């Protein structure tokens, strides 16, 4: 997530810098479905337990995309940082999840 090139944090301040204006909430979300191949492997892995790597990657990609969308929205309204970021995950139907990232877009001096 370091590739976004914008200061993103989940605290309300940036140490040593002053927020010169608040631009309101920005958000990014994505809905991802798991694919059959990964599901089959996960089904086998389910028997012995442990990490389901396919799903970990899937959720990682989804979260990165949600963050990128949030950052893109923040850039488009002229912000240079997003603070107070939160994540939320909801399962939409069986086998699909929505990942949401939201935060406050601000301009740092």
């Amino acid at each position, binding site marked *: 997530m370091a590739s976004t090139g914008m200061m993103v944090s989940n605290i309300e301040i940036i140490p040593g810098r002053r927020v010169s204006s608040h631009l309101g909430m920005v958000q990014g979300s994505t809905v991802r479905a798991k694919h059959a191949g990964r599901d089959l492997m996960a089904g086998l892995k389910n028997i012995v337990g442990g990490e*389901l790597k396919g799903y970990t990657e899937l959720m990682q990609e989804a979260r990165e995309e949600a963050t990128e969308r949030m950052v893109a929205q923040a850039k488009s309204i002229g912000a240079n940082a997003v603070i107070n970021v939160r994540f939320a*995950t909801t399962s939409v139907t069986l086998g699909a999840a929505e990942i949401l990232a939201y935060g406050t877009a601000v301009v740092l001096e």
Partner: protein
Amino acid sequence: MEIFFHYFEWFMFLFLLALGFGVGRFLEANHYASIRQRETAYASVLLFGSRFPPDMATRQDCQLVTGHVVISSDYFKKFVFGLRSFIGGRSRGYETLLDRGRREATLRMKTEARRLGSKLIVNVKYESTSISGNRGAVPAFEILAYGTALIPPK
């Protein structure tokens, strides 16, 4: 052979149970060994639950860091939990499962922080979601840890 096919479902059940017990335990022991080793290695990255950094005056860069894992129960633990849910009480199998997941997620978050040159993560939050598929499936959980890594300016 006829008996085998007649009781195929039972054989399959016992086979999966034994596989879950044997391999599941082995994998768990390995995972715990790896977690303990990495926890010692990453002990210098400090985590804070507080919202504000201890030192607010110094100018520092911030970066959101995340660590997460999707972890699945095994067939044996699911079976034992099924029995356990008749009488209630604590389920050790699922306790260790979630403990493993949360520690793994924390370690991945710390790894990302160290890569960015940070030794301090504030406002650490945890989130877990159950992502098991259809009803009766072996449960799996997604565990996410995230926080703000403070990076001292170069």
